[in-house]
């Protein structure tokens, strides 16, 4: 998977037309001639013919995605690795009952009746952002989580000491709150499932809970952590907080003594925290390169400790269409996306991406995964799952894309980077065609730059 793009500056040209580069068959690379003389016996004419004609066809069709050359290159690589007899191992989801009357833990039965879907026509993925907003003072800290999009269709973003709200249906921005100097900058924000309560984690280890409808602070959680709270995750009335001290704490926000449970296992900052869709499992990723999966019903011992990443794991995402599938992304020294079966703890797949993975989002409508990256391209990559073919690479940010959030209707993704811009991409579909028509199409003209402050 050769998207290793950490060499030179004319890489963009290469990325646009890799077909010309990768067409040179590897077998002749040893011969150092300045004129390319093909070695006919070593060439694969069938594939060459396919590659040439397919490329031409795709340029004619206007509806095809313009990043198809990079996809073709990837497809070629995939075909090569397939010759090495790499096959995919599948097991049937709904296991039969165990003998002697005792019941196995069956996987979700609801998927059983579904037939494999017929191939849909490929949709058009816009290559440029829908809208861009200025977000000054956002800072460049990898370990924080400063962006979240709530179910009431309001986006919250923390800029230094202040939290702003942006209503996606009206396009209006407002300031929610600002903390004092001593309490430090805001280090994490997370919407509760109802879309009106917002948890705000601070540098001084406190967590504030705000009601965003009335713009009032409801509560401050103190005493749980000793250092900054870099990650938050809600699970109905439980707010899980992850701190620089490596602790993961479950707080019951209704109770006076809010600390319900404390998970120990991370030795460095907990930068990624996500509850599974069922609310039964919690995935935590830390600066110690370890991912832990915690079971809500068990005590403080972790269910799985996944140590395969070689860099901080901030990007975590539970798959919405396949239970117990977790995707994790490694930081600068690792650059891999790994897939895990959390019922067994097995690593199902490891994909090299060539750039630090800052965050991951699964599509709610299709079987796709979106990852955001840093140096050098600062791109958002859309992968088809499970083949992990790149469907699109969205560039535009000029600095690493640290934060991503998905709209409640599942069609749009907002990305914020250290270049102080917040961009919106309709990568998962067009809002008009969304099945859940909760969001109306924003009536602002295309590529309008508006300020939040």
């Amino acid at each position: 998977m050769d998207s290793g793009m950490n060499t030179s500056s004319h890489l963009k040209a290469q990325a646009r037309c890799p077909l010309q580069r990768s067409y040179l068959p590897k077998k002749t690379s040893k011969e150092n001639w300045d004129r390319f003389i093909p070695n006919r016996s070593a060439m694969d004419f069938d594939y060459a013919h396919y590659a040439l004609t397919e490329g031409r066809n795709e340029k004619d069709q206007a509806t095809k995605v313009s990043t198809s050359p990079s996809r073709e290159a990837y497809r070629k690589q995939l075909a090569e690795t397939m010759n090495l007899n790499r096959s995919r191992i599948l097991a049937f989801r709904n296991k039969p009952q165990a003998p002697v009357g005792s019941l196995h833990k069956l996987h979700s039965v609801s998927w059983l009746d579904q037939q494999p879907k017929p191939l849909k026509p490929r949709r058009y993925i816009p290559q440029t952002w829908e809208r861009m907003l200025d977000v000054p003072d956002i800072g460049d800290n990898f370990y924080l989580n400063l962006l979240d999009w709530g179910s009431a269709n309001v986006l919250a973003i923390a800029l230094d000491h202040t939290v702003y709200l942006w209503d996606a249906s009206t396009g209006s921005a407002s300031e929610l709150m600002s903390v004092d100097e001593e309490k430090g900058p805001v280090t994490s924000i997370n919407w509760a499932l109802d879309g009106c309560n917002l948890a705000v984690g601070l540098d001084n280890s406190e967590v504030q809970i705000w009601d965003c409808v009335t713009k009032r602070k409801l509560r401050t959680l103190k005493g749980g952590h000793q250092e900054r709270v870099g990650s938050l995750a809600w699970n109905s009335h439980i707010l899980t907080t992850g701190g620089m001290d490596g602790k993961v704490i479950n707080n019951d926000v209704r109770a006076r003594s809010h600390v319900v449970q404390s998970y120990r296992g991370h030795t460095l900052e907990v930068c990624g925290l996500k509850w599974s869709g069922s609310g039964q499992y919690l995935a935590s990723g830390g600066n110690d390169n370890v991912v832990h999966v915690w079971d809500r019903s068990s005590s403080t011992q972790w269910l799985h400790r996944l140590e395969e990443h070689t860099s901080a794991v901030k990007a975590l995402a539970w798959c919405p269409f396949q239970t117990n599938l977790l995707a994790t992304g490694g930081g600068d020294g690792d650059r891999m996306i790994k897939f895990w079966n959390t019922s067994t703890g097995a690593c199902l797949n490891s994909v090299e991406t060539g750039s630090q993975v800052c965050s991951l989002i699964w599509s709610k409508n299709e079987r796709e995964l979106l990852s955001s990256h840093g140096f050098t391209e600062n791109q958002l990559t859309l992968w088809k799952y499970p083949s992990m073919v790149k469907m699109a690479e969205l560039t535009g940010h000029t600095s690493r894309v640290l934060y991503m959030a998905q709209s409640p209707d599942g069609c749009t993704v907002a990305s914020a980077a250290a270049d102080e811009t917040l961009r919106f991409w309709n990568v998962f579909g067009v809002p008009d065609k969304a099945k859940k028509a909760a969001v109306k199409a924003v009536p602002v003209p295309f590529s309008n730059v508006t300020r939040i402050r």
Partner: protein
Amino acid sequence: MASKTAAAKDIITLHGSAAIVSEFFCYAANSILYNRAVYPEESFVKVKKYGLPMLLIEDESVKSFMSNLTSQISEWLEAGKLQRVVLVIMSKATGEVLERWNFRIETDDEVVEKGVSREKCDKEIMREIQAIMRQVASSVTYLPCLDETCVFDVLAYTDTDVAVPFTWVESDPKLIANPQMVKLHGFDTKIHKVDTLVSYKNDEWDEEE
């Protein structure tokens, strides 16, 4: 599918061959479950197939599992994407893999791409399958006893570009460390060639002798 021609050979199409192989797999799996006592004897019922008394399990959940399996295998075979099917027997308590029945499948690509058909005598295919079934039944003599309650699972090795239906998940290969392997007979429909191999965990008792 099979038409009586003047010669003894019958015409076999891709569809027919896929049906033969997936049906074979269903009966072979049932036979393995019976012979290895994964499920109690009472839950099986006798039917006549391949000229032998074959046993099929009655349990609804296993039956539906098998039928989903065979239809999906049949589909993959017709697309030429299936490389092998593995029936894994694991201990229920520890989840350790005790036995692995490996059915390797070689597909004639020309048939998949061009849709030609082949000729082979139906009876001969039946004979070959019969031989395999007999071997499976007799395997109980050398395979180690499965004393504890066991469960089974089926893994499918497919090409990487296959579209995975909702009902299938990715899995690890569930291999056995240091297995003993026994190669059984295979059969060939001229379109699909199936080889059978059983690998099992070394029984410590036998080693001590």
